[in-house]
């Protein structure tokens, strides 16, 4: 399968909840705060000037605690929620200018969504749930079934085709949800806290599965989570939301090494940094050549292991081609951790 070419551009997006959102959009754009809007006009500011450029074929994580607006934001991408102001350009087309039919078509063929509480239809078997999107689109039943069976096998549910959702565990139900989304073969995959309802171990399994699938599929994935570990593990790019505004965006290295403010600082305090910071992020100029070698993409946690196994205090960093591009010392690693 080819890598997705579809990028998502969100520009100046505002969402105000209340009786007359349009009336207050100007004031908010001029800088009225969420508190003032709430106290003076009893409207709720859901999203405040969101600008994100989501690259094609990558996993974009949107992270925030409950009430930060992350679920509202993902629902703007397929327009389950109408924005108050702004632009959402997907693959060169503005989603907000689509007519009802165009929008329906876009939802059928352009995006697929995975839900926090699975949202499987209880009266349908696994295979009938998985082929739901294809059925809605009008794909011939036999072809839909073949596609569905392929994806059921791919997510590890072979043999469960004719079970009903309530006969499956939470993790298995979400595999069905994922297979349903993947069957649609869309370039964009929207995952709304898809793993938040799962047990930690199953969650890790599902993350691994998603990363494996993504290597193969290269879709543009928007992944919502409130779990920083999940965000750091999955995200090629991460956006952190708070009270409807973006606090910081960047990759996992940026966020861990250059937190934008105290809020992010507090967030990342308890994270196992060695597991997510790459050697490349703490690289120094190389001085000697007779040192153990570590790849630039390696996580610090693993580099420490290499160093202690070799009883060395420094290592040379090599790139994918095997050339030495710098060095890393145990002392720097320890100071970062």
């Amino acid at each position, binding site marked *: 399968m080819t890598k997705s070419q579809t990028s998502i551009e969100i520009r100046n997006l505002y969402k105000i909840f209340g009786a007359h959102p349009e009336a207050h959009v100007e004031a908010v754009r001029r800088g009225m705060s969420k508190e003032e809007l709430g106290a003076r006009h009893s409207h709720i500011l859901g999203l405040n000037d969101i600008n994100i450029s989501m690259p094609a074929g990558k996993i974009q994580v949107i992270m925030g605690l409950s009430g930060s607006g992350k679920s509202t934001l993902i629902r703007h991408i397929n327009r389950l929620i109408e924005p108050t102001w702004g632009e959402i350009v997907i693959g060169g087309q503005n989603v907000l200018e689509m007519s009802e039919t165009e929008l329906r078509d876009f939802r059928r063929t352009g995006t697929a969504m995975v839900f926090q509480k699975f949202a499987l239809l209880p*009266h349908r078997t696994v295979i009938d749930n998985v082929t739901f999107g294809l059925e809605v689109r009008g794909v011939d039943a036999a072809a839909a079934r073949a596609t569905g069976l392929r994806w059921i096998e791919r997510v590890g549910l072979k043999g469960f085709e004719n079970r009903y959702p*309530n006969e499956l565990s939470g993790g298995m139900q979400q595999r069905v949800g994922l297979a349903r989304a993947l069957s649609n073969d869309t370039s964009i995959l929207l995952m709304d806290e898809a793993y938040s309802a799962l047990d930690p171990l199953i969650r890790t399994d599902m993350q691994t599965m998603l990363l494996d699938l993504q290597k193969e599929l290269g879709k543009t994935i928007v992944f919502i989570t409130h779990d920083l570990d999940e965000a750091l593990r999955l995200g090629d790019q991460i956006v952190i939301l708070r009270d409807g505004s973006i606090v910081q965006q960047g990759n996992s290295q940026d966020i861990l090494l250059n937190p934008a403010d105290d809020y992010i600082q507090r967030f990342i305090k308890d994270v196992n940094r060695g597991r997510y910071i790459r050697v490349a992020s703490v690289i120094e100029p190389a001085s000697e050549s007779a040192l153990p070698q570590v790849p630039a993409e390696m996580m610090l946690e693993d580099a420490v292991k290499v160093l202690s196994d070799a009883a060395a205090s420094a290592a040379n960093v090599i790139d994918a081609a095997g050339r030495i591009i710098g060095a890393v010392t145990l002392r720097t690693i320890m100071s970062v951790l």
Partner: protein
Amino acid sequence: MFPDPLEHAANAGERMDWLLKFPQLDPDWLLTAKRAIDGSLKALTRSYGQSIEDFFYPLLQVLIFFENVMANAPWPLIVIAAGALAWFASRRWAEVAGVVATLAVIGLLGLWVDSMKTISLVLSATIFSVAIGIPLGIVMNRYRRLGAGMKGALDVMQTMPPFVYLIPVVMLLGIGRVPGFIAVVIYAVPPIIRLTDLGIRLVDKEMLEAADAFGCSPSQKLWKVQMPLAIPTVMAGINQTIMMALGMVVIASMIGVQGLGLNVLQAIANQYFTQGIFNGFAIVGIAIIFDRISQAYGRRLQKHRGASHD
């Protein structure tokens, strides 16, 4: 003006009169109005009675056909059919045994033919009520403003004493099967309309979101998501409708509907206690059969809806 007893009692004067006696429209005016309405209804009946009857003639034939099928079929066939239905709905032998035993007792008491007449009217009224009630429930759900109006009409239909709307039905159609059928349907159709609307409204918001996210058109959303998920509630409505129809069939005996209800009516008129109690029990027995079968079927439909085995 009629002489007012209060006026004589409260001889103290006419000052308090307005407080004790509720201001009433002029009785002469009321009388004229009543006469005018009744008169025009009668005129309507006289001029259109025949065409109204012609209009309902096909319905009459269907009702007679149903009744003949039920009443003239060999009794073992009916018992077997009822038993098979109970098995299909519940997959439990205890239910089948209960249904067969109830029918046997009804037959032994000599109420077989009357019971079949009652059952055939209840069944045809239920089928008709479901056929018009489910679409109306969907309409009520989809068009909120119209739905609010319909809700008012349903409230009136459900609280109006049934005897009252027997009157216009009889005036227009006389007595017999068709007016009885219409009265039963009017009485039995509200629950199915209401519960179809309710069932659709109770569908999980997340399911609707999923339907939208996958690009369902409104009709795909209705038939693939909302209606299937509303089925348990709709089944509860069908069960209510059957019970109301059975209740109304007894009352409709006053306008010439045959069957168990007529026997009860005779028993009241002549103070035949035993006849009353036998027929009463037969009605209870039929009600239990209908109730068990429809509920068991509703439960089986919900087999996969329980909580996850997580």
